[in-house]
């Protein structure tokens, strides 16, 4: 539902100068099929060995899945914000709102 919401809000997210991705510890083939099923117009990244998930601190206590956290990273490569209470149904519009609040540059400005 979160990934679907990101697709539905694609236009308002893409108004910003931003690259955006879904990410999970599923393998690449699973996420390719998942993206196809959603008609996702953005890449969903796969971290099957969970090393990046660990680096971001998103693994659940059992170490089996990523938590539903969204990271906002600035043009300088530093963390701008971390949303640890993502609401799947409104995730897409929430991302667009947050990018505005964070002062991320809009395209063509």
């Amino acid at each position: 539902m979160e990934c679907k919401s990101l697709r539905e809000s694609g236009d308002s997210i893409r108004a910003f100068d931003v690259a955006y991705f879904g990410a999970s510890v599923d393998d690449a083939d699973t996420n390719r099929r998942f993206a196809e099923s959603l008609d996702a117009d953005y890449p969903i990244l796969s971290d099957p060995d969970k090393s990046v998930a660990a680096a971001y601190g998103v693994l659940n206590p059992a170490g089996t899945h990523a938590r539903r956290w969204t990271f906002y990273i600035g043009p300088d490569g530093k963390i701008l914000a971390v949303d640890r209470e993502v609401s799947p149904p409104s995730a897409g519009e929430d991302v667009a709102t947050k990018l505005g609040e964070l002062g991320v540059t809009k395209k063509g400005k």
Partner: protein
Amino acid sequence: MKALLVVAAAALGVATATARSSAADLQPGDPAPAFALMGSDGKTHRLSDYAGKAVVLAWFPKAFTGG
């Protein structure tokens, strides 16, 4: 020798990242951990590919479960 140093530095980086994730959560201002991950578009995406641009990384638990 140089290659060895690079390997050692990389290992240290991984060790630091691992220790970091268990010790404290990432906070605003922290450097975002580097990544190079396969995307559903068949391309490998590296954080460094997007330097100069904002990046949103939306982690979710599992594909096909309401993702």
